[in-house]
C-alpha cells in the first residue's frame, strides 16, 4: 500500500527527474544513509569492521568503478587487481614522499594517478573488442603486478618488498596505521563510498552515462548518431580506474595497512570484483553494493558454519568454499542473469501491485 506513485504529484521537472521518484524509495534511502552515518558508528566493533564492513565498503567502490566500465560502457576488464595496485602504490608513494599532505588528498590523487594509467591501458579498446579486450586487460594485470614487484623504487627499497602505511590522521583522529579506532576508519571509508556512489549515480544518468550505454548497446550505431567512441571509451576507462584506484588506496592504507602486490592485488582480485558486479547486476549502482555485500558476507558465513559449527579442518572448509562459491555463481547466472538488482526490481514491481495484483 505504501509503495506506489498514485497521489505522488510532481510540480516541477527537477522533481519529476529525481533519482528516487517514489516517496517510499526516497525515505528508505534517507533512512539507510542516516542509519549508516548516525547509528552504525556507535555499534561497530573490531571484528565486524575488519571481517565484514570495511571490505564491503571498499569493494563496493571498486565494484561501482568496474560497473561503470563493464556494466555501463560494455568494456569487459580483467585488470581490476592491477589498477587497485596502482592506487595502493600511488597512495604509498604520496604518503611517504609528502608526509604533510592530507590523507584525503592522498587518496584522491592516487585515484587520479590510476585514472591516467587506466587511460593508457584503455587505448587498445578502440581497436580490440569483446573477449579480445578482456584478455588484453589481463596484460595490464600481469604487467603492473610485475612492475611493482621488480622496481624497488615503488616500495622504497624496503627489504621485504612490502609496502606499509605510515600513520596519518584527519581532525586529530588516526585513520591509517596501527592506532585507528573502528568507528573512525568506518566513517572515513563511508564518506568516500557515499560521495563516490552519489557521483556515479548522477554521472550514469546524465549525458555521459547515456553515451556509455549507447556505446555498450551498439558502438557503430552510437558513432553514427554522434557519440565520439574515443572520448567516451577513454572517459569510461578514466573514471572507472579513478574509482578502482581509490578502492585500492583505501584497501591498502585503511584496511590492510601493509600489502605485498602479488598477494593483495593478484588476478583473484580482478575476478572477485567481476563476480560482484555480475552477481549484483551489470549497469546498476545498487547492484554493485548488493554484489559486494554478497561476496564479502558469504565466505564469512560459510567459514563460520563449517569451521565454527561443524568443526571441520580449515583446508576442507576452504575447498568447500570454492565449490559453493562456484556453484552459487553458476546457479545465479542460470536463475537470474541480471543479478540481485533485477531481483530487487521485480520485488519493487510486485510491491507496487500489492495487495491487489491484477
Amino acid at each position: 500500500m505504501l509503495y506506489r506513485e498514485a497521489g505522488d504529484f510532481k510540480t516541477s521537472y527537477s522533481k519529476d527527474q529525481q533519482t528516487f521518484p517514489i516517496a517510499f524509495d526516497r525515505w528508505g534511502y534517507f533512512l539507510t544513509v542516516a542509519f549508516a552515518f548516525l547509528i552504525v558508528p556507535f555499534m561497530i566493533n573490531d571484528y565486524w569492521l575488519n571481517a565484514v564492513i570495511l571490505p564491503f565498503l571498499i569493494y563496493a567502490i571498486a565494484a561501482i568503478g568496474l560497473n561503470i566500465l563493464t556494466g555501463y560502457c560494455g568494456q569487459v576488464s580483467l585488470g581490476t587487481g592491477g589498477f587497485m595496485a596502482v592506487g595502493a602504490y600511488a597512495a604509498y608513494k604520496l604518503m611517504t614522499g609528502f608526509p604533510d599532505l592530507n590523507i584525503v588528498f592522498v587518496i584522491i590523487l592516487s585515484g587520479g594517478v590510476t585514472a591516467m594509467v587506466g587511460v593508457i591501458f584503455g587505448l587498445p579498446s578502440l581497436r580490440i573488442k569483446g573477449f579480445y579486450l578482456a584478455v588484453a586487460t589481463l596484460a595490464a594485470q600481469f604487467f603492473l603486478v610485475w612492475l611493482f614487484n621488480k622496481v624497488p623504487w615503488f616500495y622504497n627499497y624496503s627489504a621485504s618488498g612490502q609496502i606499509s602505511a605510515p600513520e596519518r590522521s584527519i581532525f586529530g583522529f588516526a585513520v591509517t596505521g596501527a592506532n585507528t579506532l573502528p568507528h573512525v576508519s568506518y566513517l572515513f571509508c563511508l564518506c568516500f563510498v557515499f560521495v563516490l556512489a552519489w557521483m556515479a549515480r548522477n554521472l550514469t544518468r546524465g549525458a555521459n552515462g547515456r553515451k556509455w550505454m549507447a556505446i555498450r548497446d551498439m558502438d557503430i550505431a552510437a558513432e553514427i548518431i554522434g557519440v565520439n567512441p574515443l572520448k567516451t571509451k577513454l572517459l569510461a576507462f578514466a573514471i572507472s580506474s579513478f574509482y578502482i584506484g581509490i578502492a585500492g588506496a583505501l584497501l591498502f592504507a585503511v584496511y590492510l595497512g601493509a600489502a605485498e602486490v602479488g598477494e593483495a592485488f593478484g588476478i583473484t582480485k580482478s575476478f572477485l570484483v567481476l563476480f560482484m558486479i555480475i552477481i549484483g547486476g551489470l549497469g546498476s549502482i545498487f547492484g554493485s553494493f548488493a554484489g559486494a555485500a554478497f561476496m564479502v558476507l558469504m565466505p564469512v558465513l560459510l567459514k563460520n558454519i563449517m569451521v565454527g559449527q561443524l568443526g571441520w579442518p580449515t583446508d576442507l572448509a576452504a575447498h568447500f568454499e570454492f565449490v559453493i562459491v562456484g556453484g552459487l555463481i553458476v546457479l545465479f547466472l542460470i536463475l537470474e542473469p541480471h543479478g540481485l538488482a533485477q531481483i530487487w526490481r521485480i520485488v519493487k514491481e510486485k510491491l507496487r501491485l500489492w495487495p491487489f495484483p491484477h
Partner: protein
Amino acid sequence: MSANFYYGIEVFLNGLMAGVMYSLVALGFVLIFKASGIFNYAQGVMALFAALCLVGFQTGQIPFAHLINAIFGTQIHHFGWQMPALLAIICALLMMILFAFIVERYVLKHLVNQEPIILFMATIGLAYFMEGFGDLMWGSDIKKLDVGLPQGGNVWLEEKTASLGGEDFYGFYLDNLDIWATILAAILVTSLVLFSQYTKTGRALRAVADDHQAALSVGISLRTIWVIVWSIAGFVALVAGIMWGSKSGVQFSLSLIALKALPVLMLGGFTSIPGAIVGGLIIGVGEKMFEFLIGAPFLGGATENWFAYMLALLFLVFRPQGLFGEKIIERV
C-alpha cells in the same frame, strides 16, 4: 660461432617446445569456442581435474577420503592397488566425458541464448567449482604423475651437438618430455583435423560452428554436439594435464596454465585450430627469447609473466581478429 649463439638456438628450441605445451591448452579453448561460442575459462582447471583423476585412479586413492574422515572420524586413504597407466587414462577420460554430460545437462542447457559475457562468467564459476571439487575428491597435496613417459634431458641430441660449439658448449639440452609432447600434439591435431573433415560427426561439428540455427534446422542436435565437443575438450585437457603434470607435478598451479593459453588464443584467433598451434609457437619462442635477450640481462627477469600478453596486445592493435581468426564484420 660463439657459444652464446648456440645458447640462443637452444633457447629458441626450448621456446618452441614450451609453445607446443601452450598450444595443447589453447586447442581445448578453440574447440569449445568454435562449437558453442563459449569462452571456456575452465579449460585449465579441466586439465588439472583430469590429471588429478588420473593420479587418483592410478594410485588407488579413495575419492573424498578427506571429507569422509572429517565427518565420520575414520582414517581411510587408499584402496591399496595400483592401476596400470593405460586403464587409469581410460578411467580419467570417462570421468571427463561424464563431466561433459553434467555440464551440458545442468549448466549449458539453461544458459542457451544468454550473452557471451554471462556464459564466460558461468565457466569461471565452473572453474571455481571444479577446483574445489577436485581438491575435495583427491586432496590438495602435490602429486607425482608418472605414466611411463621418458623424463630428463635427451642424451643423444646433447652428444651429437656438443661438437658444434666451442670449449664451453655442451650440446643442446632438450627435455625428452617436451619432445614427446610435440609428437603427441602433432598426432592430436592431425587426428582432430581428420575427424572434423572426414566423419559425419565432424561435419556436424563444423556446421554448428558455422551457424547454430542453420545447424538446428537441418536436424543436428545442438545438445549432443555440445556433449561431444566438451568431451573432446576434456580429452585435450587430459593430454595437456598429463604433459604438464609429468613435468611439474599435479598441483593447483596447473590450472593457471589457462592464463598462459589466453595470449596464444588472442594471437592465433579464437576460432582457428592452426592459429592455436602457430600462436603457441610464436608466444613460446617470443617469451623465451625476450627473457634470454632483454628480460634477464636488463629488466631483472621473470618477464615471462606478462610478455606474452603485451605481445598479443600489440599484435591485436594491428590485427584485431588475431592471425587466423575470422574477419570481424560489423553491421548496424
